[in-house]
Protein backbone atom coordinates (compact mmCIF):
# COMPACT_ATOMS: atom_id res chain seq x y z
CA UNK A 1 0.00 0.00 0.00
CA UNK A 2 1.24 3.48 -0.80
CA UNK A 3 2.32 5.76 2.03
CA UNK A 4 0.68 8.77 0.42
CA UNK A 5 -2.26 8.37 -1.90
CA UNK A 6 -3.73 11.48 -3.48
CA UNK A 7 -6.89 11.02 -5.52
CA UNK A 8 -8.68 13.58 -7.64
CA UNK A 9 -7.24 16.56 -5.78
CA UNK A 10 -8.87 19.84 -6.80
CA UNK A 11 -8.27 23.15 -5.09
CA UNK A 12 -6.79 26.60 -5.24
CA UNK A 13 -6.63 30.12 -3.86
CA UNK A 14 -9.70 32.25 -3.27
CA UNK A 15 -12.33 31.18 -5.78
CA UNK A 16 -9.87 30.10 -8.47
CA UNK A 17 -8.90 26.46 -8.71
CA UNK A 18 -5.28 25.89 -9.70
CA UNK A 19 -5.25 22.11 -9.30
CA UNK A 20 -7.64 19.95 -11.26
CA UNK A 21 -8.23 16.29 -10.49
CA UNK A 22 -4.61 15.57 -9.57
CA UNK A 23 -3.84 11.99 -8.55
CA UNK A 24 -0.51 10.53 -7.54
CA UNK A 25 1.10 8.38 -4.89
CA UNK A 26 4.32 7.95 -2.97
CA UNK A 27 5.34 4.43 -2.00
CA UNK A 28 6.66 3.52 1.43
CA UNK A 29 10.35 4.42 1.30
CA UNK A 30 10.03 5.48 -2.33
CA UNK A 31 10.90 8.68 -4.18
CA UNK A 32 8.28 10.32 -6.33
CA UNK A 33 8.87 13.46 -8.30
CA UNK A 34 6.42 15.95 -9.71
CA UNK A 35 7.82 17.87 -12.65
CA UNK A 36 6.49 20.90 -14.37
CA UNK A 37 7.26 24.36 -15.59
CA UNK A 38 6.82 27.54 -13.57
CA UNK A 39 3.18 27.98 -12.61
CA UNK A 40 2.21 24.39 -13.34
CA UNK A 41 0.94 24.01 -9.77
CA UNK A 42 3.81 22.05 -8.20
CA UNK A 43 4.12 24.18 -5.08
CA UNK A 44 0.34 24.26 -4.75
CA UNK A 45 0.27 20.46 -4.60
CA UNK A 46 2.66 20.48 -1.64
CA UNK A 47 0.69 23.26 0.03
CA UNK A 48 -2.51 21.30 -0.39
CA UNK A 49 -0.94 18.29 1.31
CA UNK A 50 -0.05 20.43 4.33
CA UNK A 51 -3.40 22.13 4.68
CA UNK A 52 -2.16 25.44 3.32
CA UNK A 53 -4.34 25.50 0.21
CA UNK A 54 -8.11 25.40 -0.13
CA UNK A 55 -9.01 21.87 -1.17
CA UNK A 56 -12.42 21.56 -2.81
CA UNK A 57 -12.32 17.98 -3.98
CA UNK A 58 -10.49 14.70 -3.79
CA UNK A 59 -8.85 12.86 -0.95
CA UNK A 60 -5.38 12.92 0.56
CA UNK A 61 -4.64 9.69 2.38
CA UNK A 62 -1.43 9.43 4.42
CA UNK A 63 -0.91 5.92 5.80
CA UNK A 64 -4.08 5.43 7.86
CA UNK A 65 -4.98 9.12 8.19
CA UNK A 66 -7.03 11.30 5.90
CA UNK A 67 -5.38 14.73 5.70
CA UNK A 68 -8.27 16.70 4.21
CA UNK A 69 -9.40 19.55 6.43
CA UNK A 70 -6.70 19.07 9.06
CA UNK A 71 -4.65 21.95 10.45
CA UNK A 72 -1.08 22.26 9.17
CA UNK A 73 0.37 21.61 12.64
CA UNK A 74 -1.52 18.36 13.01
CA UNK A 75 -0.54 17.14 9.54
CA UNK A 76 3.11 17.82 10.27
CA UNK A 77 2.85 15.95 13.55
CA UNK A 78 1.77 12.82 11.67
CA UNK A 79 5.30 12.69 10.28
CA UNK A 80 5.40 14.89 7.22
CA UNK A 81 8.45 17.13 6.91
CA UNK A 82 7.88 19.99 4.48
CA UNK A 83 10.84 21.88 3.04
CA UNK A 84 8.96 24.87 1.64
CA UNK A 85 9.84 27.00 -1.33
CA UNK A 86 11.96 29.92 -0.19
CA UNK A 87 13.35 27.54 2.45
CA UNK A 88 11.48 29.08 5.38
CA UNK A 89 14.63 29.74 7.38
CA UNK A 90 14.29 31.42 10.78
CA UNK A 91 16.79 34.12 9.91
CA UNK A 92 17.20 35.54 13.42
CA UNK A 93 17.70 32.21 15.11
CA UNK A 94 21.02 30.38 15.07
CA UNK A 95 21.55 27.31 12.93
CA UNK A 96 21.25 25.11 15.99
CA UNK A 97 18.08 26.83 17.16
CA UNK A 98 16.58 26.31 13.70
CA UNK A 99 17.19 22.61 14.11
CA UNK A 100 15.78 22.63 17.63
CA UNK A 101 12.61 24.20 16.24
CA UNK A 102 12.46 21.32 13.78
CA UNK A 103 12.53 18.86 16.67
CA UNK A 104 9.99 20.85 18.68
CA UNK A 105 7.28 18.22 18.54
CA UNK A 106 9.52 15.45 19.86
CA UNK A 107 10.16 14.48 23.44
CA UNK A 108 12.86 11.80 23.05
CA UNK A 109 16.01 13.66 24.12
CA UNK A 110 18.37 10.84 23.15
CA UNK A 111 16.83 10.49 19.71
CA UNK A 112 17.05 14.23 19.13
CA UNK A 113 20.77 14.42 19.91
CA UNK A 114 21.29 11.39 17.68
CA UNK A 115 19.55 13.24 14.87
CA UNK A 116 21.64 16.34 15.50
CA UNK A 117 24.71 14.19 14.92
CA UNK A 118 23.16 12.63 11.86
CA UNK A 119 22.28 15.88 10.08
CA UNK A 120 25.64 17.41 11.01
CA UNK A 121 27.13 14.28 9.45
CA UNK A 122 25.20 14.89 6.23
CA UNK A 123 26.03 18.58 6.20
CA UNK A 124 29.27 19.27 8.11
CA UNK A 125 29.01 22.89 7.04
CA UNK A 126 26.00 23.32 9.32
CA UNK A 127 27.95 22.07 12.30
CA UNK A 128 30.68 24.61 11.62
CA UNK A 129 28.02 27.30 11.61
CA UNK A 130 25.81 26.02 14.37
CA UNK A 131 26.10 29.16 16.52
CA UNK A 132 25.82 31.51 13.60
CA UNK A 133 22.62 33.41 12.82
CA UNK A 134 20.88 31.51 10.06
CA UNK A 135 20.35 34.77 8.17
CA UNK A 136 24.08 34.91 7.52
CA UNK A 137 24.18 31.49 5.82
CA UNK A 138 24.54 31.24 2.06
CA UNK A 139 21.65 30.05 -0.10
CA UNK A 140 23.04 26.55 -0.31
CA UNK A 141 23.61 26.35 3.41
CA UNK A 142 20.08 27.57 4.05
CA UNK A 143 18.75 24.84 1.79
CA UNK A 144 20.77 22.28 3.74
CA UNK A 145 19.40 23.77 6.93
CA UNK A 146 15.83 23.59 5.63
CA UNK A 147 16.22 19.91 4.77
CA UNK A 148 17.88 19.22 8.11
CA UNK A 149 15.16 21.09 9.97
CA UNK A 150 12.55 18.89 8.34
CA UNK A 151 14.60 15.77 9.13
CA UNK A 152 14.71 16.71 12.82
CA UNK A 153 11.01 15.88 12.88
CA UNK A 154 11.92 12.28 11.99
CA UNK A 155 9.41 12.34 9.17
CA UNK A 156 8.04 9.32 7.36
CA UNK A 157 7.57 11.49 4.31
CA UNK A 158 9.72 14.41 3.21
CA UNK A 159 8.22 17.03 0.91
CA UNK A 160 10.83 18.99 -1.00
CA UNK A 161 9.93 22.10 -2.94
CA UNK A 162 12.56 22.85 -5.58
CA UNK A 163 15.65 22.24 -3.49
CA UNK A 164 17.83 23.13 -6.48
CA UNK A 165 16.34 26.58 -6.90
CA UNK A 166 18.92 29.35 -7.21
CA UNK A 167 21.87 27.20 -6.20
CA UNK A 168 25.21 26.52 -7.87
CA UNK A 169 25.34 23.20 -9.78
CA UNK A 170 27.93 21.69 -7.42
CA UNK A 171 25.85 22.49 -4.37
CA UNK A 172 22.79 21.03 -6.08
CA UNK A 173 24.62 17.77 -6.79
CA UNK A 174 25.72 17.62 -3.20
CA UNK A 175 22.19 18.08 -1.95
CA UNK A 176 20.76 15.47 -4.32
CA UNK A 177 23.43 12.99 -3.30
CA UNK A 178 22.49 13.46 0.32
CA UNK A 179 18.80 13.11 -0.42
CA UNK A 180 19.63 9.72 -1.90
CA UNK A 181 21.54 8.82 1.28
CA UNK A 182 18.68 9.96 3.49
CA UNK A 183 16.27 7.85 1.51
CA UNK A 184 18.57 4.80 1.65
CA UNK A 185 19.59 5.05 5.30
CA UNK A 186 16.47 6.28 6.99
CA UNK A 187 13.87 4.84 4.62
CA UNK A 188 12.22 8.25 4.47
CA UNK A 189 9.87 8.49 1.53
CA UNK A 190 10.41 11.61 -0.57
CA UNK A 191 8.07 13.68 -2.68
CA UNK A 192 10.23 15.96 -4.77
CA UNK A 193 8.91 18.86 -6.77
CA UNK A 194 11.42 20.12 -9.32
CA UNK A 195 12.01 22.19 -12.39
CA UNK A 196 15.35 20.53 -12.90
CA UNK A 197 13.90 17.46 -14.58
CA UNK A 198 17.08 15.55 -15.39
CA UNK A 199 18.28 15.55 -11.78
CA UNK A 200 14.87 14.72 -10.41
CA UNK A 201 14.29 11.84 -12.83
CA UNK A 202 17.66 10.39 -11.93
CA UNK A 203 16.78 10.35 -8.24
CA UNK A 204 13.12 9.31 -8.36
CA UNK A 205 11.47 5.95 -8.95
CA UNK A 206 8.23 7.35 -10.23
CA UNK A 207 7.35 10.64 -11.82
CA UNK A 208 4.38 12.78 -12.68
CA UNK A 209 4.29 15.61 -15.14
CA UNK A 210 2.10 18.56 -14.22
CA UNK A 211 0.83 21.13 -16.72
CA UNK A 212 -1.52 23.95 -15.69
CA UNK A 213 -2.69 22.04 -12.68
CA UNK A 214 -3.31 18.71 -14.38
CA UNK A 215 -1.29 15.52 -14.49
CA UNK A 216 -0.52 15.00 -18.17
CA UNK A 217 1.85 12.07 -17.90
CA UNK A 218 2.97 9.61 -15.26
CA UNK A 219 4.96 6.47 -14.87
CA UNK A 220 8.29 5.09 -13.67
CA UNK A 221 10.97 7.80 -13.74
CA UNK A 222 13.00 5.76 -16.22
CA UNK A 223 10.14 5.76 -18.72
CA UNK A 224 9.54 9.47 -18.47
CA UNK A 225 13.21 10.12 -19.00
CA UNK A 226 13.01 8.35 -22.29
CA UNK A 227 9.71 9.77 -23.41
CA UNK A 228 10.14 11.94 -26.46
CA UNK A 229 7.95 14.85 -25.26
CA UNK A 230 9.55 15.07 -21.83
CA UNK A 231 12.99 14.98 -23.34
CA UNK A 232 12.23 17.84 -25.69
CA UNK A 233 10.36 20.11 -23.31
CA UNK A 234 12.01 19.43 -19.99
CA UNK A 235 15.37 17.83 -20.53
CA UNK A 236 16.35 19.98 -23.50
CA UNK A 237 18.15 17.56 -25.76
Amino acid at each position, binding site marked *: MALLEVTGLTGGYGVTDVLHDVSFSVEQGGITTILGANGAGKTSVLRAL*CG*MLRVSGGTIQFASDKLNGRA*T*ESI*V*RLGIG*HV*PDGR*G*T*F*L*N*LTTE*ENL*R*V*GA*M*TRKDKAGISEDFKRVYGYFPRLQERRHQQAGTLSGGEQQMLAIS*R*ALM*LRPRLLLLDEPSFGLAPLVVQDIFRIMRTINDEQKVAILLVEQNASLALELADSAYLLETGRVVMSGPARELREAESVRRSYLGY
Partner: protein
Amino acid sequence: MEAFLHQVFSGLANGAIYASLALALVMIYQSTHHINFAQGEMAMFSTYLAWAMINAGIPYWMAFALTVIASFFIGLTIERVIVRRVADAPVLTLVVVFIALLVILNSITGWIFTYTIKVFPSPFPEQPLFGPYVSSHEAGVVGVSLIVLLLLFLFFRFTSLGLAMRATAENAVSSRLSGIRVGWMLALGWGLAASIGAIAGMMVAPIVYLDPNMMSGILLYGIAAALMGGIDNPFGAVVGGLIVGVLENLMGAYVVGTELKLTVALMLIIGVLIFKPTGLFGRSFVTRV
Protein backbone atom coordinates in the same frame (compact mmCIF):
# COMPACT_ATOMS: atom_id res chain seq x y z
CA MET B 1 23.38 68.58 41.99
CA GLU B 2 21.49 66.55 44.58
CA ALA B 3 18.18 67.56 43.11
CA PHE B 4 19.45 66.62 39.67
CA LEU B 5 20.56 63.17 40.83
CA HIS B 6 17.22 62.69 42.50
CA GLN B 7 15.46 63.54 39.23
CA VAL B 8 17.63 61.08 37.35
CA PHE B 9 17.00 58.25 39.80
CA SER B 10 13.29 58.76 39.94
CA GLY B 11 13.36 59.00 36.15
CA LEU B 12 15.02 55.62 36.03
CA ALA B 13 12.34 54.18 38.29
CA ASN B 14 9.57 55.57 36.08
CA GLY B 15 11.57 54.42 33.10
CA ALA B 16 11.64 50.87 34.42
CA ILE B 17 7.85 50.92 34.49
CA TYR B 18 7.63 52.33 30.96
CA ALA B 19 10.14 49.73 29.89
CA SER B 20 7.95 46.92 31.25
CA LEU B 21 4.91 48.24 29.46
CA ALA B 22 6.92 48.79 26.28
CA LEU B 23 8.14 45.22 26.55
CA ALA B 24 4.56 43.99 26.76
CA LEU B 25 3.71 46.00 23.62
CA VAL B 26 6.77 44.72 21.76
CA MET B 27 6.00 41.13 22.69
CA ILE B 28 2.61 41.31 20.98
CA TYR B 29 3.88 43.44 18.11
CA GLN B 30 6.69 41.07 17.22
CA SER B 31 4.42 38.11 16.59
CA THR B 32 1.35 39.80 15.17
CA HIS B 33 2.30 43.36 14.19
CA HIS B 34 -0.52 44.63 16.37
CA ILE B 35 -0.07 47.46 18.82
CA ASN B 36 -2.36 46.66 21.70
CA PHE B 37 -3.81 50.00 22.77
CA ALA B 38 -5.64 48.24 25.59
CA GLN B 39 -2.36 47.09 27.19
CA GLY B 40 -2.51 49.92 29.74
CA GLU B 41 -6.13 49.32 30.71
CA MET B 42 -5.47 45.60 31.07
CA ALA B 43 -2.69 46.49 33.48
CA MET B 44 -4.98 48.88 35.32
CA PHE B 45 -7.67 46.22 35.68
CA SER B 46 -5.06 43.78 37.01
CA THR B 47 -3.94 46.35 39.55
CA TYR B 48 -7.52 46.63 40.81
CA LEU B 49 -7.57 42.87 41.22
CA ALA B 50 -4.43 43.15 43.36
CA TRP B 51 -6.02 45.99 45.34
CA ALA B 52 -9.14 43.93 45.98
CA MET B 53 -7.07 40.99 47.16
CA ILE B 54 -4.90 43.10 49.43
CA ASN B 55 -8.03 44.72 50.87
CA ALA B 56 -9.44 41.26 51.51
CA GLY B 57 -6.45 40.63 53.75
CA ILE B 58 -4.21 38.65 51.42
CA PRO B 59 -0.52 39.47 52.06
CA TYR B 60 1.04 41.77 49.45
CA TRP B 61 3.39 39.35 47.69
CA MET B 62 0.76 36.64 47.65
CA ALA B 63 -1.68 39.07 46.02
CA PHE B 64 1.10 40.11 43.65
CA ALA B 65 1.69 36.53 42.51
CA LEU B 66 -2.02 35.74 42.19
CA THR B 67 -2.52 38.92 40.14
CA VAL B 68 0.31 38.01 37.77
CA ILE B 69 -1.21 34.56 37.25
CA ALA B 70 -4.78 35.84 36.88
CA SER B 71 -3.61 38.48 34.39
CA PHE B 72 -1.89 35.80 32.36
CA PHE B 73 -5.18 33.98 31.93
CA ILE B 74 -7.10 37.19 31.22
CA GLY B 75 -4.62 38.06 28.44
CA LEU B 76 -4.77 34.54 27.08
CA THR B 77 -8.56 34.61 27.06
CA ILE B 78 -8.76 38.00 25.35
CA GLU B 79 -6.54 36.66 22.56
CA ARG B 80 -8.41 33.39 22.16
CA VAL B 81 -11.90 34.85 22.33
CA ILE B 82 -11.60 38.27 20.69
CA VAL B 83 -8.32 39.06 18.96
CA ARG B 84 -8.12 35.67 17.25
CA ARG B 85 -11.30 36.39 15.32
CA VAL B 86 -10.09 39.67 13.87
CA ALA B 87 -6.43 38.70 13.45
CA ASP B 88 -6.57 38.92 9.67
CA ALA B 89 -8.92 41.89 9.52
CA PRO B 90 -7.75 45.25 8.13
CA VAL B 91 -5.61 47.35 10.46
CA LEU B 92 -8.41 49.82 11.15
CA THR B 93 -10.68 47.06 12.39
CA LEU B 94 -7.98 46.02 14.81
CA VAL B 95 -7.44 49.57 16.01
CA VAL B 96 -11.15 49.88 16.68
CA VAL B 97 -11.21 46.55 18.53
CA PHE B 98 -8.27 47.54 20.71
CA ILE B 99 -9.73 50.95 21.48
CA ALA B 100 -13.07 49.32 22.27
CA LEU B 101 -11.29 46.94 24.63
CA LEU B 102 -9.62 49.91 26.27
CA VAL B 103 -12.91 51.71 26.84
CA ILE B 104 -14.74 48.56 27.93
CA LEU B 105 -12.09 47.66 30.51
CA ASN B 106 -11.99 51.24 31.71
CA SER B 107 -15.72 51.54 32.26
CA ILE B 108 -16.16 48.05 33.70
CA THR B 109 -13.48 48.82 36.26
CA GLY B 110 -15.10 52.15 37.06
CA TRP B 111 -18.45 50.40 37.44
CA ILE B 112 -17.10 47.67 39.72
CA PHE B 113 -14.67 49.70 41.82
CA THR B 114 -16.02 53.27 41.32
CA TYR B 115 -13.94 56.15 40.01
CA THR B 116 -12.81 57.30 43.47
CA ILE B 117 -9.05 57.53 43.67
CA LYS B 118 -7.58 54.83 45.90
CA VAL B 119 -4.26 54.46 47.68
CA PHE B 120 -2.30 51.43 46.56
CA PRO B 121 0.34 50.14 48.97
CA SER B 122 4.00 49.80 48.15
CA PRO B 123 5.65 46.60 49.34
CA PHE B 124 8.87 48.46 50.06
CA PRO B 125 9.68 50.24 53.35
CA GLU B 126 9.12 53.98 53.67
CA GLN B 127 12.63 54.72 54.93
CA PRO B 128 15.08 55.28 52.08
CA LEU B 129 17.55 52.42 51.99
CA PHE B 130 19.97 53.67 49.40
CA GLY B 131 20.88 57.17 50.47
CA PRO B 132 18.87 60.37 50.25
CA TYR B 133 18.34 60.53 46.47
CA VAL B 134 16.38 57.34 46.02
CA SER B 135 13.19 56.33 47.75
CA SER B 136 12.89 52.65 48.60
CA HIS B 137 9.91 52.30 46.30
CA GLU B 138 11.91 53.65 43.37
CA ALA B 139 14.77 51.30 44.11
CA GLY B 140 12.28 48.45 44.52
CA VAL B 141 10.63 49.23 41.18
CA VAL B 142 13.97 49.08 39.43
CA GLY B 143 14.81 45.83 41.21
CA VAL B 144 11.48 44.18 40.36
CA SER B 145 11.80 45.27 36.73
CA LEU B 146 15.31 43.85 36.53
CA ILE B 147 14.10 40.52 37.90
CA VAL B 148 11.24 40.44 35.39
CA LEU B 149 13.67 41.19 32.56
CA LEU B 150 16.07 38.51 33.69
CA LEU B 151 13.31 35.90 33.96
CA LEU B 152 11.99 36.78 30.51
CA PHE B 153 15.48 36.61 29.05
CA LEU B 154 16.08 33.17 30.59
CA PHE B 155 12.69 31.96 29.43
CA PHE B 156 13.13 33.02 25.82
CA ARG B 157 16.76 32.03 25.60
CA PHE B 158 16.84 28.68 27.32
CA THR B 159 13.43 27.00 27.26
CA SER B 160 11.95 25.24 24.33
CA LEU B 161 8.63 26.99 24.78
CA GLY B 162 10.53 30.29 24.60
CA LEU B 163 12.21 29.13 21.41
CA ALA B 164 8.85 28.12 19.94
CA MET B 165 7.49 31.58 20.72
CA ARG B 166 10.48 33.26 19.12
CA ALA B 167 10.13 31.05 16.06
CA THR B 168 6.43 31.89 15.82
CA ALA B 169 7.13 35.60 16.08
CA GLU B 170 9.63 35.37 13.27
CA ASN B 171 7.98 33.04 10.79
CA ALA B 172 4.54 31.65 11.49
CA VAL B 173 4.37 29.50 8.35
CA SER B 174 7.68 27.77 9.01
CA SER B 175 6.66 27.29 12.63
CA ARG B 176 3.46 25.55 11.58
CA LEU B 177 5.50 23.36 9.25
CA SER B 178 7.60 22.39 12.25
CA GLY B 179 4.45 21.34 14.07
CA ILE B 180 4.33 24.30 16.46
CA ARG B 181 0.80 25.21 17.51
CA VAL B 182 1.09 28.80 16.40
CA GLY B 183 -2.32 29.87 17.69
CA TRP B 184 -1.41 28.86 21.21
CA MET B 185 1.95 30.60 20.99
CA LEU B 186 0.19 33.87 20.13
CA ALA B 187 -2.20 33.39 23.03
CA LEU B 188 0.72 32.70 25.37
CA GLY B 189 2.33 35.91 24.13
CA TRP B 190 -0.80 37.82 25.12
CA GLY B 191 -0.80 36.10 28.49
CA LEU B 192 2.80 37.00 29.18
CA ALA B 193 2.28 40.57 28.02
CA ALA B 194 -0.69 40.90 30.35
CA SER B 195 1.39 39.57 33.26
CA ILE B 196 4.20 42.01 32.58
CA GLY B 197 1.67 44.83 32.29
CA ALA B 198 0.14 43.80 35.61
CA ILE B 199 3.51 44.09 37.31
CA ALA B 200 4.01 47.52 35.78
CA GLY B 201 0.57 48.53 37.02
CA MET B 202 1.21 47.37 40.58
CA MET B 203 4.56 49.15 40.59
CA VAL B 204 3.22 52.46 39.30
CA ALA B 205 0.00 52.56 41.35
CA PRO B 206 1.67 53.66 44.63
CA ILE B 207 3.14 56.62 42.72
CA VAL B 208 0.18 57.80 40.64
CA TYR B 209 -2.60 56.38 42.90
CA LEU B 210 -5.14 53.90 41.73
CA ASP B 211 -7.97 55.04 39.49
CA PRO B 212 -9.41 53.71 36.23
CA ASN B 213 -7.52 56.30 34.20
CA MET B 214 -4.15 55.82 35.84
CA MET B 215 -2.55 54.04 32.89
CA SER B 216 -3.57 56.38 30.08
CA GLY B 217 -0.47 58.53 30.46
CA ILE B 218 1.78 55.57 31.27
CA LEU B 219 0.69 53.80 28.09
CA LEU B 220 1.73 56.83 26.03
CA TYR B 221 5.15 56.76 27.67
CA GLY B 222 5.26 53.01 27.03
CA ILE B 223 4.44 53.49 23.35
CA ALA B 224 7.05 56.25 23.11
CA ALA B 225 9.59 53.93 24.72
CA ALA B 226 8.74 51.02 22.43
CA LEU B 227 8.93 53.19 19.32
CA MET B 228 12.14 54.80 20.45
CA GLY B 229 13.86 51.45 20.98
CA GLY B 230 12.47 50.02 17.78
CA ILE B 231 9.02 48.47 18.06
CA ASP B 232 10.28 44.99 17.18
CA ASN B 233 13.19 44.92 19.61
CA PRO B 234 12.72 43.89 23.27
CA PHE B 235 16.16 45.14 24.26
CA GLY B 236 15.40 48.46 22.57
CA ALA B 237 12.10 48.69 24.46
CA VAL B 238 13.92 48.51 27.77
CA VAL B 239 16.55 51.07 26.83
CA GLY B 240 13.84 53.24 25.30
CA GLY B 241 11.84 53.03 28.52
CA LEU B 242 14.75 54.20 30.65
CA ILE B 243 15.59 57.02 28.26
CA VAL B 244 11.98 58.20 28.15
CA GLY B 245 11.74 58.02 31.96
CA VAL B 246 14.84 60.10 32.60
CA LEU B 247 14.15 62.51 29.77
CA GLU B 248 10.59 63.07 30.94
CA ASN B 249 11.71 63.79 34.49
CA LEU B 250 14.54 66.13 33.55
CA MET B 251 12.43 68.01 31.00
CA GLY B 252 9.66 68.27 33.58
CA ALA B 253 11.98 69.57 36.29
CA TYR B 254 14.14 71.96 34.29
CA VAL B 255 12.66 72.78 30.91
CA VAL B 256 8.95 72.52 30.27
CA GLY B 257 7.46 72.14 33.75
CA THR B 258 5.28 69.28 34.98
CA GLU B 259 2.19 70.20 32.97
CA LEU B 260 3.89 69.50 29.67
CA LYS B 261 5.54 66.20 30.62
CA LEU B 262 3.10 64.11 28.61
CA THR B 263 3.57 66.42 25.66
CA VAL B 264 7.23 65.47 25.69
CA ALA B 265 6.25 61.82 25.26
CA LEU B 266 3.93 62.68 22.38
CA MET B 267 6.60 64.79 20.71
CA LEU B 268 9.00 61.88 21.06
CA ILE B 269 6.51 59.57 19.37
CA ILE B 270 6.03 61.95 16.47
CA GLY B 271 9.73 62.72 16.25
CA VAL B 272 10.76 59.07 16.12
CA LEU B 273 8.07 58.24 13.56
CA ILE B 274 9.21 61.08 11.29
CA PHE B 275 12.98 60.94 11.61
CA LYS B 276 13.81 57.39 12.60
CA PRO B 277 10.80 55.11 12.13
CA THR B 278 12.84 52.02 12.98
CA GLY B 279 13.86 53.45 16.36
CA LEU B 280 17.31 53.28 17.91
CA PHE B 281 17.72 49.52 17.69
CA GLY B 282 15.02 48.46 15.25
CA ARG B 283 15.73 46.52 12.13
CA SER B 284 14.84 48.07 8.87
CA PHE B 285 13.23 45.44 6.75
CA VAL B 286 15.03 44.47 3.60
CA THR B 287 13.16 42.17 1.33
CA ARG B 288 14.95 40.10 -1.22
CA VAL B 289 13.10 40.21 -4.50
